[in-house]
């Protein structure tokens, strides 16, 4: 159990978790608390996309916007893994994706948005946090190596695989509990 998870567990035992900040969550593979709605989630690790595809597969009813800087994700691979391509819209947003992502989140058309984490300024994360909360959709930011230190990120996951090819999730940071 990762340190963040242990702390969360201990907080639950002593009743230190503020239930007022607990929120609705998406059911997610290997994550008992799920992925919170209306929040920013950062994905890290060698199997982050494989896990994310499995996550989308569990929710065939939701619309997803898959933003990239340049085209790299292979749609054939997504369908091979059981994802319905009808639910995914792809966008090559280039280097300056903030304005477009803001429009996409605010439109409330897509429940899930995934984009590369190319942001450094805290006010950008803060803006995303506010609009995702308001729109009640989840923004997945794909990190590269080190986890972002931006406090508006609600959940940080490091995803890898064990020898039996099962997902190994390490929760690096978790801000919210889950509302049933």
């Amino acid at each position, binding site marked *: 159990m990762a340190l963040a998870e242990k702390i969360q567990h201990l907080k639950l035992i002593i009743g230190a978790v503020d239930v007022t900040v607990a929120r609705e969550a998406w059911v997610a593979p290997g994550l008992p608390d799920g992925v919170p709605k209306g929040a920013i989630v950062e994905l890290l690790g060698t199997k982050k996309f494989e896990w994310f595809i499995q996550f989308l597969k569990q929710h065939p009813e939701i619309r997803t916007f898959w933003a990239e800087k340049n085209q790299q*994700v292979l749609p054939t691979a*997504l369908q091979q893994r059981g994802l319905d391509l009808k639910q*995914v819209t792809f966008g090559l947003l280039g280097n300056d994706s903030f304005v477009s992502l803001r429009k996409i989140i605010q439109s409330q058309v897509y429940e899930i948005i995934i984009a590369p984490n190319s942001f450094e300024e805290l006010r950008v994360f803060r803006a995303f946090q506010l609009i995702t909360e308001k729109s009640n959709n989840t923004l997945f930011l794909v990190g590269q190596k080190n986890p972002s230190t931006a406090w508006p990120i609600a959940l940080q996951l490091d995803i890898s695989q064990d020898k039996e090819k099962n997902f190994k999730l390490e929760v690096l940071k978790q801000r919210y509990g889950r509302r049933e």
Partner: protein
Amino acid sequence: MKVACLWFTKPAPTQKVAELCLRFSPQICVRENEAVFVEIGKCKNLYSEAGFAARVQVILRRLNIEATVAFGQDITEALVRARYRIENIDHLPLAALLDFTDPFAKDPVAGKYVQKMISGFNELGIINIAGFKKIPLADLISRFGAIAILCRQRVTFEVPISWTYWRPAEVVCEKTEFPYFEFYGELEPLLFELKKQLDVIFQRLWARSLKAQTMQVKVFCETNSRNPKPHRQFDFDFLFPQSNTKGALKIIKERLTRDFEKKAVTSPIEALETRVSNTVPGTIGQRNLLHRHEEIDEQQQALLGQLSEIHGKENIFFAELIEDRRPEKSWKKTEKAAARPSDFTARVPLRPTHLLKPEQIEVTTGFVHIRRQAYPILNWSQNVERISGGWQEQATDLNNSYDRNYYVIELENGSSISIFQAPDQKFYLHGYFG
């Protein structure tokens, strides 16, 4: 019935000419780019044939178009007289049979049979309509069948020809003039005026059950020495047809903002014109009370239209699979989600989640060298996927021929990569699992 035919020797804007001819008669039909037919028999004594011809010539002169005007009791009679400039039908060449059978040039199949028949008669020495009329009908039927009967009936004017339906293209346009020079290049008040125009335009379209596919916005400016151009024109070809002001205004605003930032308007704005140049059928009806699918679809289309305005149409897309074993050719971009997804993916090995432009790498014992950095190999796939082909492609595409052996390699850092070996024995990195 009296028909006037305007025959254009060069391809001409027949729709435009036909619209101008509405002043003579409401009964008009068109042979695309070649002829306009006007029914003038019902005008009684409003104008004579000579008067009509003179007026038409004035119109044509203004448009800078040349045409022959001829009259007849029928569409075909007027057409052949205008085209061949021969008054007596019997003296017409046999090639005129094509115009008799298909005066609107819309039936290429019939044209092919008639042409074959004309060639046959020419070889027999029959060169004009008079000769054709002399052939006994029984002989025509036995040799050429139904098409010969049709030709005979048409040249003897036994069968009346139906007028094809034609009406002028409807233009939805709104223009507002600002005579008191209220605007001096600010965008916000201009958008406010634009919204008013779009509201009216979309109401008009909605009433006709239409959506706007292409739109043109013109901003007229006062011309002076610093601003010699009288107007700025913005053409929009929407990714998805627009049916409401909210969606269209966002897209137009994107373009106008960029243009105004790049090139400020320095002279007063005199007028604003919005014109819908192309429409597509829309849906009309009451909102579904049980779900909001249509509304969300419309919102999605508006958003994608806006994003495509910012990033380009080619960068906002859905994906559709194509049955091709090459990973890079196994899908294509589409504007709409594929209705029936291809399921060939079950027959090919698992593809990497990310595809890269093939990049040459080196493989040594126990290591893969990518960009001069060595990565220890944990596991090398037992199965090899061989993809080869390309021989059937066009000669110009020979560079696309392929011959590859694919391997999946697990690295010690936990990641997996997809590499292939080309016929030159070199290895290339093509994707990664992740």
